[in-house]
Every structure is written in structure tokens, then in C-alpha cells.
């Protein structure tokens, strides 16, 4: 870590944020962002007006925090293009998004069209694009949204790219703005405290919603040394897990697995842990499960190791929570101090006796901080930050990345659900969340589970296997649930909001349903945007190559509601087609051992930040070159290029292909047959390529130029692009 940046209700700027944390000074107050008088809870923590800016406040927060982090790291304009970008958010796009939905419902066409002129304020990809464009970032990029563990997931994603040697510099962080849809959802779930957030306290009554952005600059250790950067801390390890059980009630075993994996990744032991920064939401269920997990991790040291949680002072910044806790963890190591546990009013006799940081700020001489984050769907991420060793001895840990790994990933099965006339058949109406008969699955979860059943068969056991991960991509996710919440708010007010709609509204809900159904306890990640299916497959590959998972269920999906179709048409994608593609990637040696045939190998991948709303020809050519280099494939080896379906990029793709591969390369266009499968386009291209290689030729009508025959064993290049989402 060489740079930090924060925009928060308790302080704008990392140092102001730190001073408020140390003083335990919160900013809980009534607010005016929307009319809260209809709710039982009427308080939150909001960022001061001058930091909100015009447009989507989530974007304004992100730009300001990122600027601080990059400047803090000492990266000038010339150095920034080398930097990659990992962004997490849950609520970006929903401030203007609520207005867009209202305009749609009331048939206010002028407002609807006018709002669509600014997609950066409507789509989460807008944050990615705004950051990349403002700071000229040109490295690898990703946009993630696994609920309240999103920020920590983005930091882990960025760290893996640095460790793997893809990039020396990464800007990673998260942003979320307070929105009524989220407030109404937590309210319906009775998770909002009426006065204060009191993590791990007796009488805690829930969380206080908050907002802001926090960003960190991650840097390869040798790179930081070479340029004489001030190293604030190092991210020694990280661990991701999924409870694979209840959609919203956390389980201690999942949290414990994430913490242990992070410590093991840092090549340390639980005995080495010096401080824990808990997720600590102040909800009854979270704190009980997390206290149990921490007590189990620390064993006899439970009364020695201090435990704090920033939410007692900061409140809950939703998807950005992990980034704030990470910044606090780094500052804790840098300042040698531990912030107090805000809001604490007394011990809960029902919890294990943790050494809670209840006596104000204290020195923290420890060498590390373990930072937890958890979210709906049972996702957990732990980040293990360590104090850098004194520069006199010089050595930071340089981890061997995937280039030194002997593992490689192969596709052993794949299934694609493609719709007639752009819509998929309705899933079985009787599908329920595993073990929860009162919680029927919605359409999008049903579609994804149906594909999984086609791929894996019915679930035989729900015993949790921590070596199996679920890594998916989507454009729209579960936002049909938000449509329902918005409609309920407009028609009936807060009382009309169905708590189940919020419980299954996070982008990771279908992936979590899969994990729960099959007992997949490894990482559970969701990438967003038009190129997210490709990003998911890349991350799945790395999970296997790095040894974090032996098998990954990956792919992408999109449910197209009438509203989302209308939005897509307005944004220039009238041919969107509902698609779910799932595949199993597994360790080649394991596949061979169990006699599973390898259908394909993922040879290489590259993604690049969005420079413009849509990539141009040089953008695409450059990204392709990196992917070919990663794959150790010559341009002459490539047998075909499968085009991304977005028409806005068509001429750029054709030009890039001609410039790299000459005029004779086979170009495959799947849009006549499948339309635009959005996030699932790249996984669908993989499915078609595998089937075509088996049959010996590409499907009729899909070869735009070149030969229909496909030679098994020769590489195929698959393009993926998305509006404001970069290219892969």
C-alpha cells in the first residue's frame, strides 16, 4: 500500500477520517437526501454537501478519494497510465436510477430520454469509466459487487494482479452513496438502528447507514522500492469464502474460513494475529456469528488480541465498507494506534468474551491487522495487512504469482441457455432457496439454478466444500428486485417493501443461491458490466492456478425485464438477448485424475480500463496483444476471432483484427443467431467455440469472413466489451 484516499461523513481526507476514528466522533444525524419521515429510523451518516458534487454522488466521492490516493502515492500524470483499477460499488447509479424508473413507470418520456443521455449516472460502470478517464488509468480493470464484501473483494482482486505480475500499480477501492432503495430495504429487514450502531454491544439494534468512498494504491514491492515510494503497509494475504447456507443470516464457519485463508496466504499462523478489525455491523446476527468465528480463530488468545470495528463510528458504508476498514487498518499500522470501538455500551453476555477495544484509542504495537468483511449471500473476505519491515533491512515479501505455478485450468463442462426471441423459458416456479421453504427463488436465481442443474445435476449433498468457488458476471444482476422496491415505494411507501426483495437484491444473489444449493464454500464473486463474463472466467482461472480453488463454477447471466430492455434500447442495444452460460473450470491434474475430458483451456486474458464509453481500434488491438502475450500465442496461430456483439464497437473490432491478424483471419459473428447476450457474450462464444470444434465447423451464418472449418487445438480469440466497462 503506497497511497490512501477517503471521502466519508466523519472526515474528508484520510487523515481527517483517521482523527475522527481515533476520537470516536461519528456524524449520525437526521438527513435530507430523501424524505425519511416515513421510516421508523430517520438517521444516517452522510457526506458533507461540498463533497457530493453534481451527478451521481457515488462517482463524486470516488473521484475525490481516488485523487487523494494517487497523489498520496506520489503518482504523477506520467505514471498513472501504468495503473490498473478495481472498483466496488453496490449503490452507484441508483440515485438517478430511481428517477429513471419513475419516469418509465409514469411514462414521462422526455425525462426518461433526458436521463439516458447520462449513462454514467445510471450504470455502475459509470464509476469505472469516470475514474479511468479522469486519471488516464490504462491497466487491467474490474468492477465488482458481491454485496457488503464488495470493496474487500476488489482489493483482493487488485492484489492478485500485482502478485501475478500483470501490473505494478493498482488503484483499488469502493464507493457507495446513500440511496432510498437501500435504506428502504434495510428498513424492511429491520436491520436499521434507531439511534446508534453498537457493534458487539449488549442491546445492539442494528446498523446505521453511511456513505462515501475509500481508495488504496497497491503496488508491487520491488516497484515501490525502486521509485522510493513510502510503503504504508503490505497486504500479506487475503482469503475469500462463502457460507453456502442462508441468504442473509451469516454463519461463523464461513467467516472463520476466510480469516484462516488470509492468514495462511500470508504464510503466518493465527497465533501471529495482532489486531482484528471486524465487519461488526451492530446487527444481532452478524456480530454473534463473527464473535464466534473470531473466538474460534484466536482460541486461548481470545482475551489478548484487540478487536475493533469502524462501523461503530463510521456507520455502514455498504459495498464500500471493506475499503474503509482497510484504510483504517493501514493507518493503524502506520500510526501504531488502534481506534476505539464506537457506540459500545456494555458486554453482551451471549457473545464469546472478545477483547473489545472499548477503552478509547490505544497504542497498537502489533505487526498486523486482519480486516473482515461479509455480505448478503454469505460472502466473506478477510484481508491481512502487515507492517512493512524497516527499510534498513529492506525486504518486503515478494510473492510468487501464477507464473511460477504449475497448475493450469481446463473447462470440463459447459452449458448455455439461450432464449427464443431473446427471452428464456420460465424456470420452475417451485425453486426455493436451499433449506428455506418460505423463500421462493426469483426468476433470475431460477434461471441460473436451472442452468446449474443442467450442468451439474441435482444437488446430492449440501456439505460445504471450501475448494469450490463460484465466480460470475452480469450486467443487470438481480435488479428486478430493485424495480419492485421502487414500485412499492412509489405506490405504498416503505410499508410496501417486501423484505425478501431486498434480501435477494444483491448482485451476488444467484451465485450465493448456487453456493447454498451445492455447498460451494470457496470464493463467491460477481463482476459487473458488458465484459464481466470474460472477467469472471479469468478470475476463475486464477483461482485454480493460485491453488485457492480446485474447481470453479463460472460464467455469466442476465435477466431482461421489460424495463431493462427499454433502458438497453435507449442506450443503443436493441438486440439484447436473455442468456445464461455456466461452465466448470478445474485443475487440469484433478480433471485428468478423475477421467474428465478437457473441452478447452483458457490460455490468456487481458482487460483494460475504459478510455472512452466504447473502445476504439487501438484500444482493442493493444488489449489483444497483451492477451496473446499472456497466452504465449503468435498472431499467426490464432484460428478465428469471435466478435463482441455490441454494434458500437463493430468497426473498431474489424479494424483491430485486420491490423493484427491480416485480412484473411476468420471472423465469427454470433449476433445473427444469438443477438447480444450482454455479460454472457464471451462465455457463450466459448460454448459455441467448444461445440464448433467438436463438430468441425462454426455454425451456419456465423462466419463473417474466412473459413467455416475450425481446427481443434488451435487458439480462438474472444472479444468482450461493454459500455463504459473497458474491453477484454
Amino acid at each position, binding site marked *: 500500500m503506497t497511497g490512501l484516499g477517503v471521502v466519508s461523513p466523519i472526515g474528508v481526507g484520510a487523515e481527517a477520517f483517521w482523527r475522527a476514528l481515533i476520537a470516536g466522533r461519528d456524524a449520525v444525524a437526521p438527513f435530507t437526501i430523501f424524505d425519511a419521515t416515513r421510516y*421508523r429510523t430517520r438517521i444516517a451518516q452522510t457526506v458533507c454537501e461540498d463533497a457530493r458534487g453534481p451527478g451521481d454522488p457515488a462517482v463524486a466521492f470516488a473521484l475525490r478519494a481516488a485523487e487523494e490516493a494517487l497523489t498520496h502515492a506520489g503518482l504523477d500524470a506520467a505514471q498513472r497510465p501504468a495503473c490498473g483499477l478495481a472498483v466496488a460499488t453496490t449503490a452507484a447509479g441508483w440515485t438517478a436510477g430511481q428517477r429513471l424508473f419513475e419516469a418509465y413507470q409514469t411514462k414521462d418520456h422526455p425525462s426518461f430520454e433526458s436521463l439516458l443521455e447520462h449513462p454514467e449516472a445510471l450504470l455502475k460502470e459509470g464509476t469505472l469509466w469516470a475514474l479511468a478517464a479522469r486519471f488516464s488509468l490504462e491497466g487491467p480493470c474490474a468492477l465488482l459487487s458481491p454485496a457488503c464484501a464488495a470493496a474487500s473483494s476488489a482489493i483482493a482482486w487488485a492484489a492478485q494482479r500485482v502478485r501475478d505480475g500483470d501490473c505494478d500499480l493498482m488503484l483499488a477501492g469502493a464507493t457507495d452513496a446513500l440511496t432510498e432503495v437501500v435504506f428502504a430495504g434495510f428498513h*424492511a*429487514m*429491520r436491520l436499521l438502528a*434507531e439511534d446508534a450502531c453498537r457493534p458487539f454491544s449488549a442491546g445492539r*439494534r*442494528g446498523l446505521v447507514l453511511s456513505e462515501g468512498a475509500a481508495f488504496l494504491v497497491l503496488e508491487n514491492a520491488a516497484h515501490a522500492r525502486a521509485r522510493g515510494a513510502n510503503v504504508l503497509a503490505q497486504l500479506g494475504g487475503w482469503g475469500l469464502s462463502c457460507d453456502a447456507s*442462508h*441468504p*442473509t*443470516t451469516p454463519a461463523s464457519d464461513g467467516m472463520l474460513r476466510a480469516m484462516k485463508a488470509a492468514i495462511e496466504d500470508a504464510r503466518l499462523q493465527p497465533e501471529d494475529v495482532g489486531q482484528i478489525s471486524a465487519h461488526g455491523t451492530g446487527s444481532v*446476527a452478524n456480530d454473534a456469528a463473527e464473535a464466534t468465528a473470531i473466538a474460534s480463530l484466536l482460541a486461548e488468545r481470545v482475551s489478548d488480541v484487540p478487536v475493533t470495528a469502524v462501523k461503530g463510528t463510521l456507520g455502514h458504508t455498504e459495498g464500500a465498507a471493506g475499503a474503509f476498514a482497510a484504510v483504517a487498518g493501514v493507518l493503524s499500522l502506520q500510526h501504531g494506534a488502534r481506534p476505539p470501538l464506537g457506540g459500545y455500551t456494555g458486554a453482551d453476555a451471549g457473545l464469546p468474551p472478545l477483547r473489545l477495544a472499548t477503552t478509547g484509542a490505544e497504542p497498537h504495537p502489533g505487526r498486523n491487522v486482519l480486516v473482515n468483511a461479509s455480505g448478503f449471500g454469505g460472502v466473506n473476505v478477510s484481508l491481512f495487512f502487515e507492517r512493512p519491515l524497516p527499510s534498513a533491512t529492506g525486504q518486503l515479501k515478494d510473492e510468487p504469482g501464477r507464473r511460477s505455478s504449475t497448475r493450469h485450468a481446463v473447462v470440463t463442462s459447459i452449458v448455455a441457455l439461450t432464449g427464443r426471441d431473446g427471452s428464456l423459458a420460465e424456470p420452475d416456479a417451485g425453486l426455493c432457496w436451499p433449506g*428455506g*421453504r*418460505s*423463500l421462493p427463488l426469483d426468476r433470475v436465481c431460477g434461471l441460473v439454478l436451472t442452468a446449474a442443474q443442467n450442468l451439474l445435476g441435482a444437488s446430492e449433498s449440501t456439505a460445504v466444500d471450501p475448494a469450490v468457488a463460484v465466480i460470475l458476471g452480469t450486467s443487470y444482476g438481480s435488479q428486478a428486485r430493485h424495480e419492485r422496491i421502487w414500485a412499492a415505494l412509489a405506490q*405504498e411507501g416503505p*410499508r*410496501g*417493501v*417486501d*423484505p*425478501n426483495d431486498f*434480501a435477494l437484491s444483491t448482485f451476488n444473489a444467484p451465485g450465493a443461491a448456487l453456493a447454498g444449493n451445492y455447498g460451494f464454500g470457496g470464493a463467491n464473486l460477481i463482476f459487473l458490466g458488458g465484459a464481466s463474463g470474460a472477467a469472471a472466467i479469468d478470475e476463475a482461472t486464477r483461482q485454480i492456478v493460485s491453488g485457492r480453488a480446485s474447481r470453479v463454477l463460472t460464467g455469466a447471466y442476465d435477466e431482461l425485464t421489460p424495463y431493462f430492455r427499454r433502458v438497453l434500447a435507449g442506450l443503443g442495444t436493441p438486440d439484447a438477448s436473455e442468456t445464461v452460460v455456466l461452465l466448470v473450470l478445474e485443475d487440469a491434474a484433478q480433471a485428468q485424475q478423475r477421467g474428465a475430458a478437457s473441452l478447452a483451456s483458457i490460455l490468456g486474458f487481458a482487460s483494460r480500463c475504459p478510455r472512452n464509453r466504447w473502445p476504439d481500434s487501438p484500444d482493442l488491438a493493444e488489449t489483444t496483444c497483451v492477451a496473446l502475450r499472456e497466452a504465449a500465442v503468435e498472431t499467426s496461430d490464432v484460428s478465428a476471432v469471435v466478435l463482441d456483439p455490441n454494434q458500437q464497437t463493430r468497426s473498431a473490432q474489424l479494424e483491430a483484427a485486420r491490423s493484427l491478424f491480416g485480412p484473411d483471419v476468420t471472423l465469427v459473428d454470433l449476433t445473427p443467431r444469438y443477438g447480444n447476450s450482454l455479460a454472457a457474450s464471451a462465455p457463450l462464444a466459448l460454448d459455441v467455440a467448444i461445440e464448433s470444434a467438436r463438430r468441425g465447423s462454426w455454425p451456419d451464418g456465423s462466419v463473417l469472413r474466412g473459413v467455416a472449418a475450425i481446427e481443434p487445438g488451435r487458439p480462438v480469440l474472444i472479444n468482450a466489451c461493454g459500455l463504459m466497462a473497458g474491453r477484454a
Partner: protein
Amino acid sequence: MTAAETLEQRLGAILVRQLKLGNASVLLPDASLEDVGLDSLGMLAFIATIEREFDVSISDRDYETLATFGDAVALIRRLRRD
């Protein structure tokens, strides 16, 4: 809803609908809401429906005291009297 329908019958009907139960005969006053199939999310949905159908507002503190079918009946009776 008919005029003759009792509060118990109306509440029972909500639960039968939500949980897709065969009938409401299991819903004795002592019946634990958890045992009849309401997990934490199911309980939230049940109470949200009650708030809408009976036009009452249930505080978080009242919500936390609800354990049995009889508790729910008594709470609504009290809130409607209030």
C-alpha cells in the same frame, strides 16, 4: 375477507398463503412461528404483510417479542385497540 372471519383466521390465512401450508389447523396459539416454517426472512415477510393488511405499524421492539402465533394475534389486537 368476510365480516365473520376472526383475526386468527385472517392471520392463519396469511401464513398458509406464505408458507404454502395445507391448512391452518396447525396454528394453535402456542404454535411456534419458527416451528411452522418461518425462518428470519420468512418472519420479516409475515410481519410486513400483517402491517399492510391490518394497517398497523409494528416497532422493532414489538417485533422482537413475537415467538408464537398467539403472540402475533395479541399484538395486532393491542395495536388496533391503541
